[in-house]
């Protein structure tokens, strides 16, 4: 059996080295360090935030701008006034319109 092999017993003369008492603490500290983003990471994050906010703002302006009706022109008011006038006059206006077109 290998356990009775003298060479196996000889290996015991050089045992596994022990880590020092602070190894676990250093490992946990390294974990915290690696989880925390570096200053370059934070800077990149800030730039990304500003960039994405700007893109959202541009898109919002573009989208809502397309939905807004064009501003009233001077003719719009006159056309509206004419339409109101026609509506108030009733059926005789139709006759007037028909003769006007002819």
């Amino acid at each position: 059996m290998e356990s009775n092999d003298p060479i196996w017993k000889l290996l015991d003369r050089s045992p596994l080295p022990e880590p020092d008492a602070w190894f676990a603490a250093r490992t946990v500290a390294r974990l915290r360090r690696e989880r925390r983003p570096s200053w370059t990471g934070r800077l990149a994050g800030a730039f990304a935030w500003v960039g994405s906010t700007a893109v959202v703002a541009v898109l919002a302006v573009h989208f809502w701008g397309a939905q807004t009706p064009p501003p009233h022109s001077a003719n719009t008011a006159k056309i509206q006034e004419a339409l109101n006038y026609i509506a108030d006059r009733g059926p005789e206006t139709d006759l007037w319109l028909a003769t006007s077109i002819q």
Partner: protein
Amino acid sequence: MSPHPSHDSLPHPDDVALMRLIAEGDEEAFRLLVERHQHLVCGTITKMLGDPIEAEDLAQQVFLRVYKAAKSYQPSAQFKTWLFTIVRNLVLNEYRRRTRAWLQPLPSQDDEESGSYDAELPDKTAKSPDQQALEKEMMRAIDRAILALPEQQRLAVILRRYDEFSYEEIAAVLKTTVPSTKSLLFRARESLREALQRYLGEGESI
């Protein structure tokens, strides 16, 4: 009140329970896991690389990988086997990095004082300076002989002799079969016997 009462309810949580807590971001569970396995992980990597400083860095990387993998960890395999598969992968990566960087793969401990090794020697009995010198020389010879083994044989010997893994566990870590593991260990023992021939008789007397 503790933010993670699981520690109080489980005085000695097993590795799988700790991994569940780590998956939730519990640093205390991570610290417990590191403390539980640091001896074998650090010791194995130091024996594999022959450099305690690089070994510590690599051992920390092993535990950081464990933390990152905690969320996806499936307790299908034994935790120890899974942990040492990470050890094996990182050690083999380190060998490849050294090969690419044209670094010396096996640093000779004769060239340095290897103070960190010597500082950790257990001083069981008072020995004469001559005996201490002989013992240190023997330890270095043993470490050199282990470092001279091919990677797979070296890891198999360390896992078997120092970490007390079964053949099945070693085979799982090395991703090989049990007969192949036994063959690796047989060849490793023969190489060690040849390299350490002169100490085989002296070992008992020192």
